[in-house]
């Protein structure tokens, strides 16, 4: 049962991601990407990481992708206006090397990860506890990062309006 669900989610994720890349129409790409996020959230649920699963849907599928769609709709690109990807031998070599290294790495990872997955628990209380103790420094740094990003974005948006 669990394996079946895993292959359903993982397969769905891979298929949706591939579809994102190969879809000719950017709106469909965005929708497949949402599907991919949903499948990822499913995988998180299977790892008992409920909070992360919900955040994945809430933030990525629910907010960020809406903005993506928003922009795509406003630009309103039609598929025939898009240039296809030109395949360059260097790209193939780079991608191939990466794939080879990655599959070697993933095959090595197997047992090490399985032994650790069990003590992962994703309840809000536990996540909050690690976030505010062990990772307090990066947490605060992220808040500064967001502040700086807001500031900069406002400046960029304001000035392109003036110009």
């Amino acid at each position, binding site marked *: 049962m669990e394996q079946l669900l895993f292959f359903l989610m993982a397969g769905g994720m891979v298929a949706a991601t591939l579809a994102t890349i190969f879809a000719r129409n950017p*709106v*469909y790409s965005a*929708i497949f990407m*949402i599907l991919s996020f949903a499948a990822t959230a499913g995988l998180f649920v299977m790892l008992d990481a*409920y*909070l992360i699963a*919900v*955040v994945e*849907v*809430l933030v990525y*599928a*629910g*907010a960020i992708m*809406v*903005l993506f*769609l*928003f922009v795509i*709709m*406003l630009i309103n690109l039609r598929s025939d206006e898009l240039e296809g990807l030109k395949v360059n031998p260097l790209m193939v070599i780079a991608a191939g090397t990466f794939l080879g290294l990655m599959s070697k790495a993933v095959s090595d990872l197997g047992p090490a990860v399985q032994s650790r997955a069990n003590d992962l628990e994703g*309840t*809000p209380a536990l996540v909050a506890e690690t976030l505010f103790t062990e990772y307090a420094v990066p947490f605060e740094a992220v808040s500064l990062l967001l502040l700086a990003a807001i500031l900069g974005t406002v400046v960029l948006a304001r000035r392109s309006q003036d110009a």
Partner: protein
Amino acid sequence: MSLAVLTFADDPIFYLAANLAKIVVFTHIVLILSALSVLAERKVSAWMQDRLGPNRVGPGGILQPAADALKFFFKEDIVPGHVDKVLYILAPAIALMPALIVLAVIPYGPPLTVLGETIPMVIADLDIGILFVFAISSLGVYGIVLAGWASNSKYPMLGGVRASAQMISYEVMLGLSVVGIFMSTESLRLTDVITSQVDGTWFMFSQPIAFIIFVIAAFAETNRLPFDLPEAETELVAGYHTEYSSMKFAMFFIGEYTAMFVFSALVAVLFLGGWDIPFMSNADFEALGNWGTLLGFLSFFVKCLAFLFFYIWVRWTIPRFRFDQLMNLGWKVLMPIALVNVVLTGVVLGWLGS
């Protein structure tokens, strides 16, 4: 309050049966209520405008929803030639699904005892309850946006763009406004929120600012007047569903009214004590056994219906906002207030705690 909750391991068949029953019963109650609320909408508006409203079908027009449904079924299902077929057909379903999924985490009443097993009156009592609600309801916008885009015509497109901007903005206020509640309950589980209100005060009184913001955001999230800009009929014909007819249109319609019910239920759960009845404590409900469940159940639905009435009342009372006013209200007024509310709650809680 600790519950001896039935799990799959205890008795798989009983567990499955109980859950299936819950799903079927609750979904149907809500869908029927949604259909009736369409009738209520027309009746209340008529009453407010000193008219009669629908009164031909059945006694006092009570069967009007059935007649409407029949009409939708028998209308020709037109798919205009200029649309993006796949998404055009998918969009109404996407609009309806999130509202139905959210029904799964809403606690309708105190736990019921059947054959010695305690069954919580919620389909899935999630540890992350409210986040689940927000996550799923945030997907509702896709139905509208995709309908707008797939229709491939001007007004739906404008409606879709407005909807995405509006719903993303107000989702932020929605989420921020309830932070205070969860700071005081120390749990995101909706049943915990209710039990803490049953023995304490309703959050409507202890979190008045959050209550007002949540209600305003709920109106914006369900695209109801005064925030119905995605379908503003005087500006955009019918907004995102201009190109839809027959059952596809009906699905948007049901989706909208189900979403209204969901938000009414959330207001009831978060601010009006859920199944609570004033002057009753958790112990009282437990002492009454299944009668307590029934009482709680009724109390919950009374609150939902009251809020649904409020929805309708507001619709026929307040004029529509302009789009820039909507955005200014959200980002420049509600958002800072909601943030201040979070800080205030923190200060008060810290002060009480020390």
